[in-house]
């Protein structure tokens, strides 16, 4: 499952939002309009703090360095995980180029980089499991850069 990283809310906005809304995570359906013009408090719009935040983080070729986009998204995940701790699995992957066992190592490097960043943000390391699939489980098929760039990734599950 790949979510695009189109929407970036600032970390502080998210944290603020979380504080305001975490007690009521369900989105209420909009109530039917009341005909009377009596002013009522507008119902709070509750949003998932991870709405629009990718749980897939992408990398350059033969690199395990987190991009600034990956760090932004991981920061949001870190805050959510600190608020509501759960066990997660970070699955590292590589594109098809180069040798398979080297790519296994590269996938692990990538998963470890994501783990280390989360831990640095205060997430309990015992909640994080990492695994590398190397190039064995591509997200996109095809032997061109647009497929390769989708396959050099870490998935947070």
């Amino acid at each position: 499952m790949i979510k695009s990283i189109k929407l970036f809310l600032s970390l502080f906005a998210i944290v603020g939002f979380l504080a305001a809304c975490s007690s009521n995570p369900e989105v209420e359906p909009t109530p039917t309009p009341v005909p009377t013009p009596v002013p009522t408090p507008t119902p709070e719009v509750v949003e998932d703090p991870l709405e629009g935040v990718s749980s897939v983080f992408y990398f350059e070729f033969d690199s395990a360095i987190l991009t600034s986009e990956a760090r932004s998204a991981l920061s949001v995940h870190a805050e959510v995980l600190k608020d509501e701790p759960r066990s997660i699995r970070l699955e590292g992957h590589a594109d098809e180029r180069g040798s398979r066992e080297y790519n296994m190592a590269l996938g692990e490097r990538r998963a470890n980089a994501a783990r280390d960043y989360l831990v640095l943000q205060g997430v309990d390391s015992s909640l994080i499991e990492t695994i590398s699939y190397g190039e064995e489980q591509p997200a996109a098929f095809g032997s061109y850069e647009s497929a390769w760039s989708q396959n050099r990734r870490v998935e947070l599950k």
Partner: protein
Amino acid sequence: MSVRVLANSWLVANKGMMKKINPAGLISKLLIILTLACYSLSSQAELAIEITQGVQNPTPIAIVPFGGMLGKEAEEIASIVSADLQRSGLFRPIPRADMLSLPSKEQDISYRDWRIIGVNFLVIGELTRAPAEAGAGFELTYELYDVITQRKVFRKITRGGGNAIRDIAHVVSDEVYEAITGIRGAFSTKILYIEDLKRGAKRYRLVKADADGARAQILFASSEPLLSPTWSNDLQYVAYVSFETSRPAIFVQNIVTGSRQQVTNYRGLNGAPAFSPDDSKLAIVLSKDGAPNIYILDIVSRRLTQVTRGSSIDTEPNWTSDGKGIIFTSNRGGSPQIYQVTLASGRIERLTFEGDYNARPRVSPDGKSLVMVHREDGIFHIAWQDIKSGDMRILTETWLDESPSIAPNGAMLLYATQHNNKGVLAAVSMDAGVKFRLPSKQGDVREPAWSPFINQE
């Protein structure tokens, strides 16, 4: 049934030329490579692609359908021998239709019949039911003649059980090949590979087959990835990595009984197994302490010895033929390169210096050269390197090439590449003169592992 389909699908492709890496001429060489690559891609696999540069003349040889009362089997053996010799790239078997006579005994040979059609060597023989005391099966008496000198090179007998037609044929191919080239034949050897059906349960398969792809047999199938298959030197065991426990683990499987044993269960990577020359140990990769490092696992005692240290990626160990060293991939210098560690001293030496990506080394049987995955201008090829001089040359014109595995006679290597958007196996001779391809019937085929000789000399 599928066995025969697979056997026929090995295609003789092209004769290429050898390319030496020379910094001054890289661009023009790349252009040649790209041109050849485009040419190969546009040609259909069924066609033999002839590239006119560096072509050697294969030796014309006639494999006469063997005499005796077993026409069908005799014909089948002769055609398997012809296919074997042709695939080696060193021989050009003559079609039966071109043969002016079909002798099966020495006194029936008319050398003139063979000189006229330009044949240099002649193989004849007789196939009979094996004598009762030898068990049910076949006995083939076969003879090799040198047409130019008009002399008999050898007369040999081979026997096999009722379903040993292919074994008998490969023995003939081995003996003929060795008598003429001086190099031991590897037609009787086996290969392993991974097949990925890409859908369904048990989509990943570890397959064993004859060196020509025939008699494919599934050794293990799984819904989770399988990788890095490798042979023990006594051919009794295979080792590989399986994700069946939801994490990578190394398994050793007896290929005769089918029994399997998980030999590692460490946190992190458990990968790249390689049997030591005496089969008592496995070189493996573990990242239990953080970074991927090379370890040696004693198979019986399970004692673990750490070989490499440090925070860089060390992986893909391959034993030197004397068992005193291990060649491996490491990115300790910034990019993946090939290194050698001497086990007694722990001394590590870098072996590759050409290019910014050299990985997955395999040492040749004579210990003098290695092959590897090499990136040049963004394209991944298989390259060969003389260990002493450091001279490197690129062997393949395909791209996305990986997993080279050298035949036990050192004449050819198998590797994985892509063709028509599928993973396929391909072969190239160590001098880059001979190339052929094994297209997959279903899914992707990858990670070939060529077996050692069945009877070590």
